[in-house]
């Protein structure tokens, strides 16, 4: 192990991180204690991937951040856009509001109930346990707040909005969300992680989202990350798909000084299907490490994962796309596509696919493209009177379009288009 990595592996428990809540639930207490022990032994992740180069994030010093002690002050929300669950700096800002019939929300962390239902033990700290990594263990042991969202059997509900807001300089937010769709339920979940500090907060988000899609259930899960240039976020989202269930996962990554985001899907029963669509943009000096891990653990499961990214300015991003099939997963059909657009000669990006296949009778594939804005395309647009800045916007949006078209919800699609445009306009005019 290189010396720098060894030093970081020894990161000791940061004193300010305590967590709390649900103390009357023995299994939960035991899980959190186990997580704390795991934290002490697990190495700090380094995220230094890239072929021939590497991401250069500043070392993540946990002691430079601290969970916000006081409950958050009221947070203004735009009328009509109120979240059902609102977390500010990792803490629940208020009770869940406006829940449709068939949806139950159990608050987690300080202020939540002492006793958790037994069924929660199959989800909380179970889908993403402490063995997932040092920061996942930290989240479990020192969670600052969160919610368990349960959609009852057979219920069909519209969009549930779960919003994380970061606004305090130096805050460490350790939110944990769990979403459970019971048998035959249908729902759309929008999980947003946004910076409300005006971009100036040096905050840390160490987040975990655990998702369980029950038998025959159908979930549309949309997550959006739009953080400021000084924010750091390490988030693992993991979904477990039951028999004949379906998950349509849409991801938008539109900013954050350092982001290490992972989307894991375990297809644990026959007939489960995942359609994942991801869009990411890195600009300024941002460093993004993105992982998509699709794990086929049962026969006859299917997945189609498509990511499309663009890098601007002096940013760097690495996309690790992994498909795993277990020996028993006969009849797996799985495809991973990833595409990269370079918009600056100074940006670094890499896409590293991995297909880990055990057993046979599977159809697993990967396709990738890397491109730059074509000066001939810009010339063509200019020959029609479209100036280079607008032409560049058109070409970047056009590049993302085949991926955006996969997003089933038109409002989400339009929001992603707007976020891409905002990001393109915020970056320099240089092209690779």
């Amino acid at each position: 192990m290189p010396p720098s990595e060894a030093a970081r592996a020894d990161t000791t428990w940061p004193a300010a991180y305590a967590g709390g809540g649900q103390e009357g639930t023995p299994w939960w207490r035991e899980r959190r204690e186990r997580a704390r022990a795991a934290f002490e032994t697990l190495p700090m992740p380094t995220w230094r991937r890239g072929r021939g180069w590497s991401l250069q994030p500043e070392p993540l010093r946990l002691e430079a951040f601290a969970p916000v002690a006081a409950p958050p002050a009221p947070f203004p929300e735009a009328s009509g856009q109120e979240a059902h669950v609102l977390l500010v700096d990792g803490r629940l800002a208020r009770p869940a509001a406006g829940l449709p019939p068939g949806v139950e929300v159990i608050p987690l962390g300080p202020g939540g109930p002492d006793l958790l239902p037994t069924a929660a033990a199959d989800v909380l700290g179970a889908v993403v346990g402490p063995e997932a990594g040092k920061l996942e263990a930290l989240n479990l042991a020192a969670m600052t707040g969160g919610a368990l969202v349960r959609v009852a059997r057979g219920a069909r509900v519209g969009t549930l909005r779960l919003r994380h807001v970061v606004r305090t300089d130096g805050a460490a937010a350790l939110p944990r969300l769990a979403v459970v769709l019971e048998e035959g339920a249908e729902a759309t979940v929008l999980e947003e992680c946004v910076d409300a500090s005006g971009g100036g907060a040096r905050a840390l988000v160490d987040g975990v989202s655990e998702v369980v899609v029950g038998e025959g259930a159908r979930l549309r899960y949309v997550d959006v990350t739009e953080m400021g240039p000084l924010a750091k976020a390490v988030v693992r989202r993991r979904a477990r798909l039951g028999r004949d269930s379906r998950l349509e996962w849409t991801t938008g990554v539109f900013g954050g000084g350092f982001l290490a985001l992972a989307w894991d899907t375990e297809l644990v029963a026959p007939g489960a299907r995942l359609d994942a669509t991801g869009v990411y943009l890195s600009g300024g000096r941002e460093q993004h490490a993105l992982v998509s891990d699709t794990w086929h653990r049962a026969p006859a499961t299917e997945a189609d994962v498509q990511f499309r990214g663009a890098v601007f300015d002096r940013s760097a991003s690495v996309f690790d796309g992994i498909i795993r099939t277990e020996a028993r997963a006969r009849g797996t059909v799985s495809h991973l596509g990833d595409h990269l657009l370079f918009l600056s000669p100074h940006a670094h990006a890499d896409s590293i696919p991995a297909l880990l296949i055990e057993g046979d009778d599977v159809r697993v594939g990967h396709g990738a493209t890397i491109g730059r804005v074509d000066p001939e395309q810009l010339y063509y647009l200019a020959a029609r009177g479209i100036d280079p800045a607008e032409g560049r916007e058109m070409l970047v949006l056009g590049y993302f379009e085949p991926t955006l078209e996969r997003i089933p919800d038109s409002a989400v699609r339009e929001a992603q288009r707007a976020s891409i445009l905002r990001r393109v306009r915020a970056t320099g005019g240089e092209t690779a």
Partner: protein
Amino acid sequence: MAILEIENLSAQAGETPILRGVDLTVRSGEVHALMGPNGSGKSTLSNVIMGHPAYQVTGGDVRLDGRSILSLPTHERALAGLFLAFQYPIAVSGVSVANFIRTAVNARRTRRDPEDRGVPLGEFMRELRAQMARLDLDAAFAGRYLNDGFSGGEKKRLEMLQLAMLRPSLAILDEPDSGLDIDAVRTVASGVEALRGPDIGFLIITHYQRILTYVRPDRVHVMVGGRIVRSGGQELAQELEAQGYDWLKRETEDAAV
């Protein structure tokens, strides 16, 4: 009334001289044909007029309505009234035909009136559909990505569609007939004829005389070795069709000795 004046224009690509003193004037209301063998510099001329960054002008001038355009970027030349229909239009995935043309139409409107809010969608789509029908293009065409997976004929007709929607004062058509069957040539030619009038001038670049049987030019020019070596009326095109370009090449070479 627009006037495009090309005066003693020389240009090169990298270190290779291509245009060697071109003189040509096109006014609105006129149709000029520029013919010549492959490699004579016809397409280069169109791209130099439009400001393609791969070419450097080494001498002479190009003026639109008396004002030199050589220092203007390409989009400014287009907004000033120039249009180039490309010989090989490039594909732009993810950008629909309708969105692209509407953006270009709005760029012109904003140039004329900075307060303009853009063409209303309904009005734009009605006009677009009408022009598409004239060019025998299916309505679904508007939603397809620009030139992406288009046949040769579809690409040429899309160029003509843009011409009809943008209404420039001077249009350069770079081999609008190449690679087309005779029916498609007729469609393209009728598109030009429909627009022909006192407010627009055409410079049609072509290798063959074929399209000129449907679009009768007022003047025909022949380019050889980066210069215009002969100008005349429609009969010059017929002469070239009958005899080819070799005699003109020989004359040019003899004159150079």
